[in-house]
């Protein structure tokens, strides 16, 4: 009881506990903010992979899974499975439309042949598509392209005088549009009559059709022709801005959906040898963004049948080698993998086992007379994995990095412990005589230790929760803080200067009276606040700084979700260290000979 009284008096009548609380709070907040941001990163990496992967993946290397349609049907009949979609996965070379010369650039790309409709059910394909409708500039470029491709048709509709006027408009627009908006669409519409204008619009559905761009992406085709959807970073014309948005270079000139590309893939025969490369020219219909740089810079989507034919994985007749005219069977079309999405709430591991069972049923359902059998699930080439397992090679390093960071930051824990230890050491040392007095009037050693344990528990608990609260506040507002740091408001500079002047005046007044402490504190306040104010003015003068460069870090916003698990662990750890930090000097103090303690000055 008296311990509580003493503890509360020690806490309330001195400055040092406030310093200790502040130190604990700062350390806890530091660890919480850093670990939360790191965890946020990992979560963003993992969830962005989700947009294109589904929950479980069946794959069988480059030899693929024959009769995959039957497998997809079986999978979709299971009530735990929401949807399944086949993928043909391969590598290829994509000849890009740039630069504006005969020597075009080629990109190495990973090619996914997909069934867009089922693919959209399994993944977040629809939302990952970058373009829904063209922007004003893009529409103008599309219009210029449409006119160039249909020049003769258009010329036949227009009177020669109008045509000359129109050609002038085209020439001016195709020049202006490289730099600024040209209002070409409006000017053309104004120049032509309704019938002529409707003809122009009919050249390209994207000029007027609602969400036509998005629809073409979802269909993977334009005007009935198969098309390509590019990862947003495949096209070098897309430039990421500092704030994380994208701009197409040369005022949208290099906008991918204007162009087409030549895709070359290398088919592999049954023995693993390379057959003649196959090429196809396809229009770029849209672009997608998964949120993972490694994916966005190399992956492209094409219709599955195109991919199958490029890789020779489509259905083929098997002939008798002795008599090529005799057909002895059919080699069915294959897919290299199948993506499966479970109904909401089903865990990846559970779904994987369900899928495995379904696959076993599927592979054993074929009679031995079938010419081409699917691989058994025990085949080492056949892999059934959850998305997390599939992505481990990618997220693993980030995860490890976080653990390393956390280990490094656990040094902060040691700093906290050392700090607490030294603070308590000095507190207890200062209180040695009190301990002697208490012992002389009959207090036991244990009760002395208990006083300081209570004392440290209060400091630990108050400090840690204060730290948790500030950590939460900082993490939640980390983007606003970042923005304010990069471009600090003038008002803060003004407040800093005003306070700095107050401190300066205070210092001068006290200096005349000759007191030292106010002079030291006042000068510190004057210099610090004046410095901050000056720094703000400097940052504003150079036009703001970018602390978090979104074009480097890929994610446009700093993750701002608190990692509650780690935070509570940190809070618990800090409290524990406070208790330990006090326990040692308190035990030492309790063991001090009361007579010696009483002599302590």
């Amino acid at each position, binding site marked *: *009881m*008296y311990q509580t*009284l*003493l503890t509360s*008096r*020690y806490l309330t*009548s001195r400055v040092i506990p406030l310093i200790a609380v502040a130190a604990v709070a700062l350390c806890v907040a530091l660890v919480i903010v850093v670990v939360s941001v790191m965890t946020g990163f990992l979560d963003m990496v993992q969830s962005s992979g989700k947009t294109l992967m589904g929950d479980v993946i069946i794959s069988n290397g480059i030899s693929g899974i024959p009769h995959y349609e039957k497998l997809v049907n079986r999978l979709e009949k299971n009530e735990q499975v929401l949807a399944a979609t086949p993928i043909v996965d391969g590598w290829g070379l994509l000849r890009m439309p740039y630069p504006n010369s005969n020597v075009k650039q080629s990109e190495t790309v990973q090619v996914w042949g997909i069934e867009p409709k089922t693919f959209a059910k399994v993944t977040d394909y629809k939302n990952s598509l970058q373009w829904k409708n063209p922007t004003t500039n893009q529409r103008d470029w599309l219009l210029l392209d449409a006119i160039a491709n249909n020049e003769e048709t258009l010329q036949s509709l227009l009177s020669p005088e109008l045509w000359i006027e129109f050609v002038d408009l085209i020439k001016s627009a195709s020049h202006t549009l490289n730099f600024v908006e040209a209002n070409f669409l409006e000017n053309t519409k104004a120049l032509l009559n309704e019938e002529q204008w409707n003809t122009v619009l009919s050249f390209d559905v994207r000029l007027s059709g609602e969400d036509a761009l998005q629809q073409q992406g979802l269909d993977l085709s334009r005007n009935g022709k198969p098309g390509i959807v590019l990862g947003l970073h495949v096209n070098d014309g897309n430039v990421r801005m500092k704030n994380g948005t994208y701009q197409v270079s040369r005022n949208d000139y290099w906008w991918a959906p204007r162009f087409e590309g030549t895709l070359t893939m290398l088919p592999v025969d049954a023995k693993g040898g390379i057959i003649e490369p196959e090429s196809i020219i396809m229009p770029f219909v849209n672009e997608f963004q998964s949120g993972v740089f490694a994916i966005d810079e190399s992956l492209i989507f094409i219709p599955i049948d195109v991919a199958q034919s490029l890789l020779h994985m489509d259905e083929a007749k098997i002939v008798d080698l002795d008599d090529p005219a005799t057909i002895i069977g059919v080699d069915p079309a294959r897919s290299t993998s199948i993506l499966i999405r479970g109904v909401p709430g089903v865990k990846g591991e559970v779904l994987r086992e369900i899928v495995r069972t379904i696959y076993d049923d599927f592979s054993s359902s074929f009679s031995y007379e079938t010419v081409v059998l699917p691989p058994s699930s025990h085949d080492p080439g056949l892999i059934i994995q959850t998305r997390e397992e599939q992505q481990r090679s990618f997220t693993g390093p980030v995860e490890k990095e976080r653990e390393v960071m956390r280990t490094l930051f656990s040094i902060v824990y040691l700093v906290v412990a050392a700090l607490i230890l030294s603070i308590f050491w000095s507190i207890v040392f200062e209180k040695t*005589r*009190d301990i*002697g*007095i*208490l*012992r*002389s*009037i*009959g*207090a*036991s*050693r244990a*009760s002395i230790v208990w006083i300081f344990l209570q004392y440290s528990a209060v400091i630990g608990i108050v400090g840690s929760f204060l730290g948790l609260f500030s950590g939460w506040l900082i993490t939640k507002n980390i983007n606003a803080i970042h923005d304010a740091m990069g471009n600090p408001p003038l008002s803060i500079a003004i407040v800093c200067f005003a306070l700095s002047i107050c401190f300066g005046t205070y210092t001068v007044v006290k200096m005349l009276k000759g007191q030292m402490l106010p002079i030291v504190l006042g000068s510190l306040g004057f210099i610090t606040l004046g410095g901050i104010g000056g720094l703000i003015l400097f940052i504003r003068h150079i036009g703001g700084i970018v602390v978090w460069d979104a074009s480097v870090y890929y994610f446009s916003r700093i993750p701002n979700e608190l990692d509650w698990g780690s935070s509570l662990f940190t809070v618990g750890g800090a409290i524990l260290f406070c208790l330990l930090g006090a326990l040692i000097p308190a035990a030492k103090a309790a063991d001090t*000979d*009361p*007579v010696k303690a*009483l002599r302590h000055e």
Partner: protein
Amino acid sequence: MSNTNSLILEGINLKKTYKLGRSQVPVLHAASLQIHQGQWTTILGSSGSGKSTLLHLLGGLDRPDQQGGEVLFNGESVWAKSNRQINAYRNNHVGFVFQFYHLLPELTVLENAILPTMIGGSFTTTSEAKNQAEHLLDQFGLSHRFTHRPRELSGGERQRVAIARALVNNPSILLADEPTGNLDEETGDGILDVLGALHQDGLTIVMVTHNMEIANRGDVIVHLRGGNITQLD
């Protein structure tokens, strides 16, 4: 001057040596003395003669050397007791008054006085203990000072608070270590008057001083010279 009362506290052949660096400094050689119920004993000695040490040994605050004699309280060896019992002895049976008051600066006057009852004490309720402390402080003329902090008090007032604290658990013996050593003569006399009054009421007192005049207030004066006791009557 009554030796007829029963023996309450006895020091037998007390020996105490302090270590000072590598050398051993003997303070008490074989000091023996007897304290009787209701007696005011003063221990007179020059500074460094070991009189404070003797008081600490008697009060269970310091331990004599190995085989360095015994302290008997009501016939029982104090240092043979368990730690818990020694704590209880300090808390309940003896009350210490120090030269430098040794009040806790964070606590008020009343809280300081009540502290021993909170640590141990024979009081069953807080209000009972509080009444006792208030009664003592009243008696010492400190009724208007209950909520003050020690730093707001004069030296004499502080020492009176210390005496109240020493007496709050109704101890058998009051051990006073130069209680006036830090006070001017007039204030010191006031404190001695307080002790005298308590003695009149039957309190057993052991007081240490180097001042013959102050020593004369006691019933029995013992001299401490060269670590040995010589009793003067």
